[in-house]
């Protein structure tokens, strides 16, 4: 953690972000500095401390198993950039 290595192209792929070369260089340098700052966490021994996910420990929240109305298909599609025949339109994901 003290010597962070950040492969910006790999992280961009995982992030589903197409970066220009200029962005890749800039972000790599800026995030490098931010990660260096994160070494503040090294100042404390954290090994025996339980992690906290949420400020309020609420678990297993269920609702009654009853049907509820939601969006109609028309409402759900209203903001879609592309739609066709009552469905979201996107590039083919299955090989022919």
């Amino acid at each position, binding site marked *: *953690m003290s010597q962070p290595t950040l492969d910006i192209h790999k992280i961009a792929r995982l992030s589903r*972000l197409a970066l220009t070369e200029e962005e890749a260089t800039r972000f790599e340098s*800026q995030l490098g500095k931010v990660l260096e700052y994160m070494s503040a966490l090294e100042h404390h021994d954290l090994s025996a*401390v339980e992690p906290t996910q949420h*400020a309020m420990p609420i678990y297993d929240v269920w609702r009654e198993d009853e049907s509820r109305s939601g969006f109609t298909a028309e409402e759900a599609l209203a903001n879609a950039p592309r739609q066709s025949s009552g469905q979201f339109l996107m590039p083919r994901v299955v090989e022919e």
Partner: protein
Amino acid sequence: MSLATETIVSLRKRLLSKEITSADIVRDLAQAIEKKNPTIGAYLSVDTEAALKEAACADVSQPLGGIPIAIKDNINVLGQPCTCGSKMLAENYTSPYNAGSINRLREGGAIPMGRANMDEFAMGSSTENSALGVTRNPWDHERIPGGSSGGSAAAVGGDLAIAALGSDTGGSIRQPAAYCGCVGLKPTYGSVSRYGLVAFASSLDQIGPITKTVEDAALVLNHLCGKDQRDSTSLDISVPDFTASIGQEIKGLRIGLPKEYFIAGIHAGISAAVHQAVKQLESLGAIIEEISLPHTDVGIATYYILAPAEASANLSRFDGVRYGHRAENPVDVLDLYMKSRAEGFGPEVKRRILLGTYVLSSGYYDAYYIKAQRARTLIRQDFTEAFKKVDIILSPTSPVPPFKLGEHQDDPLAHYLADTFTIPPNLAGLPALSVPCGFVNEGGKDLPVGLQFVGKALDEATLLRVGHAYEQSTEWHLRKP
């Protein structure tokens, strides 16, 4: 005098005596917005006609009946835009539903009016990260209004709104409220429904009011809190009348000053204003004690690991398929995702998604994400220990006055470090209030200073009591830009 300059409390009296109508308020606000918004840029859009329609059938017997409230542009209001200050949602998104907080406000009789500018997806503390417009501080147009709820705070501080809703993940209500001379309240995590708030960091986000007085904040909070089945983290507890604690004295109240907060790096004028406020609170009968929050030094690192991690997951929903920006002519589905997101998101959002993805990625998850979750435990424990000794913790809201626009644009870390005092309450889920406590003079302009009170979980009543007592014993809240 325009009704836009008034508080909820004063307008309520005039509405009930039938001296004015809700439509009068909407019209005066529309006029103030027309005059000032081209300079201040607090709003991205305002639908005056829709507000007038609601005003025409307002039930002024309701606690917020006929009061227009500006809404940060990341909270869904049915039929209105919800851009999140991003190109991603600017083109063709219309909210198909009301947020839980908006339902609650409407039940109280309020009228959502206007969409307030913000840092893109609430990431930032200057509102400079909005892709859709510049917001200026009403006290000095060359300076930032703070952020991310900068539009909400500039609207209230500049008398372009009576009150506003903001959202606060690491200070995004309190810091802009401080910078614009307003009151800002981040409620206890789980108090206000997050349903319909476009998620940034789900374990930290809370909606809250930005107002002109503490009493107004109490009034709005009454109509924000409450269980919402659609937000699994919303707390199932009864909502007290928060205005009941307004006006009660603070004699004997124990106020803690964290010794770690009053160190080098605080602007001298801010330090002086806060120390003057401490004396004022003492004269009102409060007992001041030094306390320790020993893990203050890891607050920012913890936050800037956890918040981007959660953001990187939350923002994966923007894929160019169901809503939001979609790139033209993608070669395949991966190309659609990569290009749509590259074109739709601005630089700070990209930085945080990249950072969040990195700290969650294989090989770094334990070193960063889990470690930050462990540090979060220590920060929570610090507060638990401190609240055994005191009722309220006091600090500056921000260690520095508002930057000049563009001053730190290429130095994200400088912006992050200004969040030192506002981040810990989010990590611990605690309520916190910012109240005006003076001014610093920079370049011939008076800039407001904010005083932050942090309370025990669900003890907003004490926060509002001390905030109101302090506010009413000073005249800071009466000054106008």
